[in-house]
């Protein structure tokens, strides 16, 4: 009964945005559930049958992603190439709406069939169990990417009563996540959006401040959502995996990817990088594997060449880091390492955020002084918010590192934070990762 409620509530939540895409998610769920069951039952039979079911399931999910997310990019790229050669439109341009959360739930689903194929998990007890897993509303639209293996045991031993400790943790994660979003990320959003909307970004100082603002906005927005998802999951009696571990404290780029959007980076590692051969083969092959993984990781974020270049940029950084580590060209100062890593990540965010490749180049040129020195933003309040955000990101313990105590002072503080967040909700903006 509880699974039926979770599923219905999740479908209602999803359908509230656009009910027309609900059948798509139900179709994906059904196909993967059947494929998972078939892979399991064919375990003792012909391995080809198992492989065929796996390939069928993966192809279905990738086809969904390819059509809904990447068809537009494909069509515009082909048509641009064709028009530059003097031909007209080759591929019809369709006005396709991107179903919200499709990147997340297809990845959730793919990990399910792959893990059954690998013998890591058993198929879900019923279609209802599996539907509840795929549609689970806390993480449905912006992650974290939860694998069935993460919650299989929890699903099968779900308690009827929510304990006060888990309820407290739910409150803690949800309130901290909401306040990260509303009290930090949204305070930084307006000047950042204005800067990235400028046709001609002016000044080195302005550009660095704006990109720093975006770096903080993105982190607090996305990690805030992840914390809220963890909190909501606690209210349902489930524990989601950690998705952020103070990424801006990373001392190198590989460390950054162990701390940023952990559920995606580990997904790419386990289902793409390692199957490609990981780092067990030659250096050239490892370089190629890293590049392919990060290329696809970039493409996962959005159907745009800026995301592809952003992914490749991180691929190159990882290759450089691996080479430097092998030759022991590393610095002994953790602070310096953190600064270098953070600056490299910031430069990447320009590609990630800019509307076009040309726009990103203009901002990068401004950051390197092509448009003059510029000046600090006129708003002292904004600078205070930014300084506060930086202090929290660089020095404070993250949500998972703070050990919640059953003290009343904690309860009052969380109530105060929630009140402040509720009051500021009126001007809140959508979560940045909803677009992926």
């Amino acid at each position, binding site marked *: 009964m509880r699974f039926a409620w979770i599923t219905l509530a999740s479908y209602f939540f999803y359908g509230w945005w656009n009910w027309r895409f609900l059948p798509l998610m139900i179709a994906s769920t059904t196909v993967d559930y059947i494929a998972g069951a078939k892979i399991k039952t064919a375990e003792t039979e012909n391995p080809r049958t198992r492989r065929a079911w796996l390939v069928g399931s993966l192809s279905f999910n990738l086809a969904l992603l390819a059509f809904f997310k990447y068809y537009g990019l494909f069509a515009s790229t082909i048509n641009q190439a064709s028009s530059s050669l003097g031909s007209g439109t080759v591929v019809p341009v369709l006005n396709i709406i991107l179903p919200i959360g499709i990147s997340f739930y297809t990845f959730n689903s793919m990990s399910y069939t792959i893990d059954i194929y690998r013998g890591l998990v058993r198929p879900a007890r019923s279609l209802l169990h599996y539907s509840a897993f795929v549609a689970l509303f806390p993480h449905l639209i912006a992650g974290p990417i939860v694998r069935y293996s993460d919650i299989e045991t929890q699903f099968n031993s779900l308690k009827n009563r929510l304990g006060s400790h888990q309820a407290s943790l739910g409150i803690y994660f949800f309130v901290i996540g909401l306040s990260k979003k509303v009290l930090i990320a949204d305070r930084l959003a307006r000047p950042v959006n204005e800067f990235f909307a400028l046709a001609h970004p002016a000044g080195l100082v302005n550009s660095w401040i704006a990109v720093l603002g975006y770096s903080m906005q993105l982190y607090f927005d996305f990690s805030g959502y992840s914390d809220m998802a963890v909190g909501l999951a606690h209210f349902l009696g489930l524990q989601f995996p950690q998705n952020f571990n103070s990424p801006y404290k990373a001392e190198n780029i590989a460390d950054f990817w162990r701390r940023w959007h952990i559920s995606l980076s580990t997904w790419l590692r386990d289902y793409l990088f390692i199957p490609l051969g990981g780092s067990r083969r030659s250096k050239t092959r490892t370089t190629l594997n890293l590049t392919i993984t990060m290329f696809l990781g970039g493409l996962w974020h959005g159907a745009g060449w800026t995301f592809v270049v952003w992914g490749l940029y991180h691929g190159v950084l990882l290759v450089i880091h691996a080479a430097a580590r092998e030759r022991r060209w590393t610095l002994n100062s953790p602070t310096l390492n953190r600064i270098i890593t953070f600056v490299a990540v910031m430069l990447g965010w320009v590609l990630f955020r800019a509307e076009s490749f040309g726009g990103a180049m203009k901002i990068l040129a401004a950051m390197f002084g092509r448009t003059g020195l510029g000046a600090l933003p006129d708003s002292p309040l904004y600078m205070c918010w930014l300084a506060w955000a930086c202090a929290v990101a660089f020095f404070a313990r993250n949500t998972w590192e703070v050990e919640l105590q059953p003290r009343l002072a904690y309860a009052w503080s969380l109530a105060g934070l929630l*009140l402040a967040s509720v009051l500021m909700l009126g001007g809140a903006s959508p979560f940045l990762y909803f677009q992926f």
Partner: protein
Amino acid sequence: MKLTFSDASEWNPFVRTFLCSMLCALAAVAVLNYVVNPDGTYRSRVVPQLLWGARGQKLSLLATANPAPQALILGSSRIMNLAPTDLQKATGLVAFNAGVDVARPEDFYVLLRYAVERLHLHPRLIVIGVDVEAFHNHEPPHYYLQQPTELTPYLWTQPNPHWRWAKFTKLFTYDETRSSLTALYKVTTGHADQLERTDSDGLTHCDGWSRQMADGNRELGESIRDTISRFAPRYDDYTALSRERLDYLRATLDFAHQSGSQTVIFLTPTHPLVEAGLQPHGYASRKAEVIAAVQSISDQTKTPFYDFSSPREFGGEITHFIDGVHHDGTYFELMEARMFPARARAIQ
């Protein structure tokens, strides 16, 4: 990190305390906002409404205006300091400033019909100041018109059925709480009569701003930047002129003429730096569309239209702006000189 869950009862007080303090705090905020009721959204009238341009307040003043006004000034906060006495000097008609905050053409229409049909006023002149933003195609009517009020029967589309919910959630917003605290501060410190205040003829005095300007404490550059940052998202969403709002303007003029009133329209001024700052957000296109559309309606209804969007259009300097879109009132004398050059001969 895998968490372990303790079933110890030591967590029960934590949950109870959190829930109780949260509910108490929310209730306190809601009670504060309901009782103070800074802009007249709720029934409470314990504290006088202090925020200027409240529709309810203007209706009360209009109903009790003595002598009955012969000229009505309609528009947004940008014309609320147009002195009715100056208009009277220019036209010879007793005037009332019915400007309200964030006014759009539906406000002009319902206010005029209310004045004529409910208050039985017979204005001989209607002066309408329109803003470029007044024809926004995605902004809903002011929240006052989204709930049943004295004015809403005159709207073509009746209020949003979710107005009760919107009214309820407004109790828990930062803006409402800040307004309540500001109002409360003004009342408790005796500043209520010294800051924004509205005369019986509807003229609003911005004494706070005036004092800041006189003391040199008002940073115009900061105000202009603030205006740009507030308006930029509105312009991003302002993709075309609202047909319905243009129809409301036409209907206002038609109704005025049927009631025997003459009409004049002017486009309110905007600081050149704000215009420049909003260029990337489509300001120039929207402004050109508004001028063309209002000119067309004016021609059809034989209403004089004046484009005063830039001070140079009426011979003004740009030094009288208080922020990006409001000014100290000096411009109105120049505008009136352009609009009523013959000292109301035609109207008289």
